[in-house]
């Protein structure tokens, strides 16, 4: 199986007043055509920086480590020229972010947004672009596309804005959709609608998706595979069923236990002590060690990602040297 997207040894550093922030370090992740991968973790873990790297949307101040490789459909993204990069963004790779309202131009109608996006990637006349705009609005489940094209972003609810924004991302028939917390600003009922729509679209259009979320419930609902990030590194990757049934990394287990759920206990769930450290001062050794109930001497040096089962890897000494654990 050839990968559609391949990240290899991706490292991203930002200069800050407190010194270099190593936001992402040595992240390797591949997404197959049509596959949905959820990148899960708390804020400050490097999920969004990883996603932005794919399309080289990082601020100018960011530097990529010399080992970093990004390949999309066999092409070296880091070697693309400006024009090729422009065609990739919103072309073969579509994007949706958390706040659709902030990404839509308030003085342009929804139709104008779509026509502009379609014509940026396809040499079609205006009438064709308009017809395609209405098709796209129907694809994302907006009723009455003929009226929708004439509406302005502020006339739409948050859920409708997210659908319109998604229609733009789909305009050039992307093979990969990058969705960064696409439902976080929405009510739970609207979230359920958008998640169902995303699952439906990836299936119907054969589109792969990199879904960034802090919510394990969302990963459980839509992902084929789940990658968990902590402190700039991937700490566990597994197919969805395996990750939830046999979480190997103590951070993954902690997240699962901490998540409040309707079928769980009615007392507060066990928390993970402490907080995510700062990217300018990651702990030495295993970065999760200061918050980990199983930490032992071995954790003073950093573990590598090791296989716990086929297709299942975790970055923890308990995986390779289980006798040291307290569990």
């Amino acid at each position, binding site marked *: 199986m050839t990968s559609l997207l391949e990240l290899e040894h991706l490292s991203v550093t930002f200069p800050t007043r407190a010194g270099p922030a190593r936001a992402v370090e040595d992240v390797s992740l591949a997404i197959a055509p049509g596959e949905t991968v959820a990148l899960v973790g708390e804020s400050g873990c490097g999920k969004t920086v990883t996603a932005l790297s794919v399309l080289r949307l990082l601020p100018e101040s960011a530097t990529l480590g010399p080992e970093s490789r990004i390949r999309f459909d066999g092409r070296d993204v880091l070697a693309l020229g400006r024009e090729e990069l422009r065609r990739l963004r919103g072309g073969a790779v579509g994007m949706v972010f958390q706040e659709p309202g902030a990404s839509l131009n308030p003085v342009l109608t929804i139709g104008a947004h779509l026509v502009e996006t379609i014509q940026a990637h396809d040499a079609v006349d205006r009438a064709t672009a308009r017809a395609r705009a209405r098709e796209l609005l129907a694809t994302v489940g907006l009723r009455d596309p003929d009226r929708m094209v004439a509406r302005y972003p502020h006339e739409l609810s948050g859920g409708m804005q997210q659908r319109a924004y998604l229609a733009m991302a789909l305009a050039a028939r992307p093979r990969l959709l990058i969705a960064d917390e696409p439902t976080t600003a929405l*009510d*739970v*009922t609207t979230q359920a609608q958008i998640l169902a729509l995303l699952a439906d679209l990836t299936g119907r259009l054969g589109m792969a998706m990199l879904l960034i979320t802090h919510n394990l419930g969302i990963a*459980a609902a839509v992902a084929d595979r789940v990658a968990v990030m902590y402190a700039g590194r991937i700490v566990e990757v597994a197919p969805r069923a395996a990750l939830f049934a046999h979480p190997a990394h103590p951070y993954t287990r902690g997240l699962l236990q901490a998540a*409040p759920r309707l*079928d769980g206990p009615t007392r*507060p769930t066990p*928390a993970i002590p402490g*907080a995510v450290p700062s990217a300018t001062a990651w702990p030495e050794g295993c970065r999760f060690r200061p918050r980990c109930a199983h930490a032992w001497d071995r954790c003073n040096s950093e573990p590598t990602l090791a296989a716990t089962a086929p297709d299942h890897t975790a970055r923890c000494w308990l995986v390779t040297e289980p006798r040291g654990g307290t569990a």
Partner: protein
Amino acid sequence: MTAPPLLVIEHLAKAYRQSRGPLRPPATLAAVADVSLAIPRGATLALVGESGAGKSTVARCVVRLEDPDGGRILYAGEDIGGLRGAALRRFRGRVQIVFQDPHGSLNPRMRVGTAVREPLEVHGIARGADADARVAELFREVGLDPNHRGSYPHQLSGGQRQRVGIARALAVGPELLVLDEPVSALDVSVQAQVLALLRDLQARRGLTYLFVAHDLAVVRQMADHVAVMYLGRIVEEATAERLFADPRHPYTRALLAAVPTPDPDAPPPRLVLRDDPAPTADATPGCPFHPRCPDPRRADRCRVEAPSLRDVGPDQRAACHFADEPAPSG
């Protein structure tokens, strides 16, 4: 539950005026319409619903950040609407609010120790070395190292900032805390820490909570009683046990079905509700929920007759014509 409730809300109403352009008179949008609730001392009442349901408006009226247009709020038997001067100050010493985003509610240029000390001085509770000692004590009580007193809000993590927000609210020794989405902005690992702290403080200080939240899984861990709001009205109200075990209003059932569960074998979040709420219940004749109602029993009656909130079981009330019957399966 024979003791009189600490907080009673009676027929609360609050409307906002919305401009419709220069040529038309402004529209009146009812944010809250006829909300009645009571919280026994030491209990937690959760107010849940989608954004725009009116939850925060109720919360803001309870702490007198807003004045209602109709109805009244009784605190320990006293109508808070008429409180002025010293009486209002005394009220503010008993009822405090904790906001969602401590980043937004804490002054970024004020050291967090000063932020917690300020209410002690404003309310004449302590000054000088005595105030210093109390601030250190409050920090320890909410699980913060007193050495953080000299920090600025941006130097703390989200969870630490929310602990500062809680310490500031506790400084005046309140009896009732209004918690407006207190953990929504926090990561899940830290959210659990703050929820445990709130439970702990409640037990230790005998606090009463009005807990405003949209996350039903969190509410289930915290609440004794739950009121579900839709377009400014309460559509269901019950003990937490009953509401989660046997929800009677189709909107409550839809909210519950939409919560994603971190378990791949669980049914996926169900697409029960299409569309968005109407901008306000005023625009909808009949039941405000009927345009979105997925209940197969929805009938002509729902389009013309607004259901009233009525008893549908022990400690349970719902505003649905069909709430007496068990939920349809599937």
